[in-house]
């Protein structure tokens, strides 16, 4: 891995190393588990990290292009980046989980709601409705009341999982946490790389107002 021997800040190297260590630790486990489940450690592989990195970069480029023409205040740009990152994460899940479908559906629904309000009566998307209804019908009350309350809080936190059965909710949560961890790793690496570049360019070129946030 010659490309990862970095001249960047030690923090970036640490993030890379942590990612590599995780992959090595889970690589043995996933080969032992084989094809039992649907790839439990999918979010830990280096390949997924690479795919997400390039998708994230493209998404951020789009945000930049969009905000340069319209009003680009700091807070809205940050939120636009967050939404683009979440959307890219949901796409990476390849539509197999409830939370990823919910993220993509809510985004699309926001567009279509504006459009349909002008054209004709809004049509409710049936797929999410059916999924929630069938999941609720397969059995929900297998947990004691105080547990159910915590489970409900969890359902609020994970997008699109408010009405799932308890076991399904646990599965969704597991996948969602792993995906979030990958998202954090990737965004941190990207931020380190960008700030290293800006530090280099500001020290080498004319003094710009960019300060590298270490």
């Amino acid at each position, binding site marked *: 891995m010659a490309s990862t021997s970095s001249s960047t800040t030690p923090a970036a190297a640490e993030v890379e190393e942590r990612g590599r260590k995780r992959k090595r630790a889970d690589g043995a486990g996933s080969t032992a588990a084989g094809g039992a489940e649907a790839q439990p450690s999918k979010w830990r592989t280096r390949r997924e990290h690479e795919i997400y990195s390039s998708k994230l970069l493209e998404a951020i*480029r789009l945000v930049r292009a969009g905000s340069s023409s319209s009003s680009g205040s700091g807070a809205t740009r940050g939120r636009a*980046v967050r939404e683009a990152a979440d959307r890219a994460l949901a796409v990476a899940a390849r539509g197999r989980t409830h939370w990823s479908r919910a993220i993509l559906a809510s985004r699309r629904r926001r567009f279509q709601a504006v459009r349909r309000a002008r054209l004709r009566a809004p049509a409710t998307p049936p797929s999410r409705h059916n999924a929630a209804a069938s999941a609720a019908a397969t059995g929900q009350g297998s*947990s004691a009341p105080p547990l159910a309350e915590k489970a409900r809080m969890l359902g609020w936190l994970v997008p699109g999982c408010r009405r799932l059965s308890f076991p399904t909710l646990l*599965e969704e949560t597991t996948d969602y946490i792993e995906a*979030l961890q990958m998202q954090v790793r990737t965004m941190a690496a990207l*931020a380190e790389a960008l700030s290293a570049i800006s530090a280099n360019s500001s020290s080498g070129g004319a003094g710009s107002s960019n300060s590298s946030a270490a």
Partner: protein
Amino acid sequence: MSGRRGSRISDDEINELISKLQALLPESSRRRSASRSSASKLLKETCSYIKSLHREVDDLSERLSGLMSTMDNDSPQAEIIRSLLR
């Protein structure tokens, strides 16, 4: 998927899912006897962990949106970024 045995989910399945979830939580709060600790405590930890992850993503988004101006001036730098990430 979850309707294998009719409408009752066995406790074993739930315990297995819970232990899988526990394996993901940050190791600082994990102990050997934690497998016996209440599931509700585990769920609470999971909630706060997800919230902290959300906060981290928000912070990183802010940071990235501030750094986006770096990409404006230097388009060849984007290629450098891609090669760094690979």
